């Protein structure tokens, strides 16, 4: 089994799934589902008339020069349709990693040009378009080359997979890194990172050169797979500020842990209304019982946005103390809007059982 085949062990097969606009499809899955795969330069994007004397029938056809090919019969040029909701946005001159399928005879696209040149279909969308900068080409060449090369008698070993994923995560290419995350999250423990590799991944989460959401995605995956403890989050809480800290606070939602409480409480007292509000909402979990008095302070603040965040926090904690504070606010808060909101949210939560 090649790297791509192992990495392609995912929720859905690539070729049929690539229609969707928010699809989580990795490079490996695209590679697996393609009949032709390669790095290309887009030469043209033009409407072609397929009417053949019949009713008008315009359809966009893209032409590209194959620069590096990794799958399919070798060819110098390819012509293809885009067929997807929210398809890739290729322009002439773009470099792209392209994954093409042959048109099925039953496909209306095939019927468009039965007499014409061989026309493929790309079902790549914005999330999977893999438009490349010049700097990314070498990284893509290496990864696609790995997918295309059978090793060890056609069998792939776990270390090669983990090496490929680590290479992609550290490459500096956001789209390669996101592809690696999808494979990693789907494969889980099967990736089997070594201690050294885990250290390298942890180091990535602390790299200021790496975008915060990518760092947090790596950290969340490491934490979810129990490869690191919650303490791995500490350096970020200690060093990040502004929008990065906001993203960090929000990233604790869904992975609530007492270890995060001091950091969230510190954020709660921030001068930034946005950060303070986000912290209040991040505390919305029974794990954080005990912080109710701090949230009550926000509930009494002059700013409506903080009041609403405090309502969410207290509702999420759900303790008797929180409930009492909310009921009191419903009756006597100085703001009519807050009274309305807290009353509505209490009733709605009761209705939901």
């Amino acid at each position, binding site marked *: 089994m090649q790297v791509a085949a192992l990495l392609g062990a995912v929720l859905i097969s690539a070729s049929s799934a690539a229609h969707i*606009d928010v699809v989580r499809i990795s490079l490996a899955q695209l590679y697996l589902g393609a009949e032709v795969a390669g790095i290309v330069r887009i030469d043209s994007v033009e409407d072609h008339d397929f009417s053949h004397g019949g009713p008008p029938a315009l359809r966009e056809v893209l032409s590209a020069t194959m620069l590096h090919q990794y799958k399919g019969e070798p060819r110098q040029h390819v012509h293809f349709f885009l067929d997807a909701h929210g398809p890739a946005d290729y322009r002439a001159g773009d470099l792209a990693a392209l994954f093409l399928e042959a048109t099925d005879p039953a496909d209306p696209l095939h019927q468009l040009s039965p007499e014409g040149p061989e026309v493929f279909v790309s079902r790549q*969308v914005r999330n999977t378009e893999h438009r490349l900068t010049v700097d990314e080409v070498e990284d893509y060449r290496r990864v696609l080359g790995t997918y295309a090369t059978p090793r060890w008698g056609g069998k792939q070993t776990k270390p090669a997979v983990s090496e490929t994923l680590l290479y992609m995560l550290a490459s500096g290419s956001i789209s390669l890194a996101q592809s690696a995350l999808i494979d990693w999250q789907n494969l889980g423990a099967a990736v089997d990172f070594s201690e050294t590799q885990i250290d390298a991944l942890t180091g990535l989460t602390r790299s200021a050169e790496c975008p915060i959401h990518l760092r947090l995605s790596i950290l*969340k995956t490491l934490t979810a797979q129990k490869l690191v403890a919650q303490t791995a989050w500490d350096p970020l809480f200690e060093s990040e500020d502004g929008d990065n800290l906001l993203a960090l606070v929000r990233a604790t939602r869904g992975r609530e842990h007492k270890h995060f409480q001091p950091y969230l409480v510190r954020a709660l007292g921030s001068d930034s209304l946005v950060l303070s509000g986000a912290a209040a909402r991040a505390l919305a979990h029974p794990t954080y019982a005990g912080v109710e008095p701090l949230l009550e302070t926000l509930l009494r603040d002059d700013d409506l946005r903080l009041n609403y965040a405090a309502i*969410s926090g207290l509702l999420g904690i759900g303790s008797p103390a929180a409930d009492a504070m909310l009921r009191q606010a419903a009756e006597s808060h100085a703001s009519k809007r807050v009274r309305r909101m807290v009353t509505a949210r209490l009733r709605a939560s009761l209705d939901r059982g």
Partner: protein
Amino acid sequence: MNNGYTSTTFTDDATLGVFFMLKTITVNNGGMRRAFLAALLLSAAAFTHATHAKPPGNLSVAACARDITPVSEGLAEAYEDRFGETPALNHSDPIYMAGFGTGREATDYNDRLWARGVVVKGRGGTLALVSLDLIGYFNNQVDIVREMVEGIDYLVVHSSHQHEGPDTLGIWGPDPTTSGVDPLYLDFVNDAIADCITEASASLVAARVKAGTITTEGLSLGISVDDDGFGVADQVVLKDDHLLAPDTNGRIVDPNLVVLQFTERARKKNVIATVVNFASHPEVLWSANTVLTSDFPHYVRERLEQEYGGTAIWVSGALGALQGPDRIDVSEDGINPVIERSFDFARVHGNQLAERAIAALDRKPGHPAPVIAYSQQKPVAVPLENPYFRFFFATGVLGNGRTLVTDGQPDTSIGFPFPPPFDVIPQALGEGLETEVGVARIGDVGLIVVPTELDPQIGRRYRAALESVEHKLIVGLGNDEIGYQVPSEKFDPSCNQCAPFILAGVPEFCPVVNPDCGTVFQNNIGSQLDPLISDALMESIGDINKVKP
């Protein structure tokens, strides 16, 4: 009789419910008759216009609009530059735009996003319809809004499903595992909807209602492969659709544009609100756009308000499988197509839809005393078969207070049900989702409210069943957004059938050839959605059909 659903309007026994409603109507009619008699006597005493005496109408209506444009600190200046007003901040940076890929950050504004509503009070009850320029709004948020307003018997919160606004559902964040929703913004929108309804409820004026239905044939040039000239293209053809629509290779669109207009009963007959309903994704600007806009509905509304005044309200219809403007061509001069995916396209298309809406309305006065009725089925429980949705719920990308449900109770449990080595993929474990459907009636107009992106061929069936009214709006994404709804017989289970093979990393061994995990079946609750939604809705349609005009 009630198939496990509960009806908040009627009692559990629908017959009793209709009886109750008729009783209410009778009382109201009794009042009307008394007033009519009094008017006649007064007229007779004065010997004037006795023959012209009309029954006093009892319809009262008001419209409202609230700006729900998301404004972050980083975009406040752009907002001020564009609209000339200092905005209140209601969103954190960045604003992730919903509808296509992830990581699309808003950079500017073209037009404001709105919550636009109308409150309609008459014999039979009080309805409110609020349309949001948003991708969708979950039912748990609608429930909060319902608790924030008073005096409304049936509230419908509709989302236009526009693809050029903020993420309000979750799956369009910075990456596929991070939500794009700012919960602060949801609170803001809830306030805006509640304020809109409260304001309108306090401003009701005597009104009339009229409606029109017109075809959209000719609204696009029909020169592209998928464009059959109806101003919208079907971008996904389902199994056997070619048998239903052989002339268009199976492409099925809903060519009905339905218009509902409320006017003041006072002498000036000012227009209060004009509601336009058509089935097309507001996504002209497409996936590369980063300028916030409500898309072509903005231009529809602008033109209608220029024509009539009042408040124009856009309502998207049966959007499913897969109705949109991207594969059509429109032209100002009838010859040269406007550049696609541009604001120019949105303007031309919007104006042309508005002109068609204007043509649908005659100049006769509307009805002053239409019957008001509604039937709501809530909750409608739907089993969740989609592992993607389960993944997104488990990771918190979907949710914001919404949970899965098991045996009618919220179920937030998360597990790892897949076999090794995939036993690290989290899945929300609840049985399914709860949603709602409903039908409202305003005289000769029916509003069919579905929580889905409904396939137009199902919409056609609903319209045919609602035989008691002439004009039938389909309110898509009404009170919820739970994905596509296709006819049950056309649901393709291949993606689910292949799951064990796919999950085991050997999709090529799945005996099903070419499993279809495309947009329509990926954004889909599952195979039981259509029968469950349809059964519930048909019950409401049956209720409404029993109501006497």
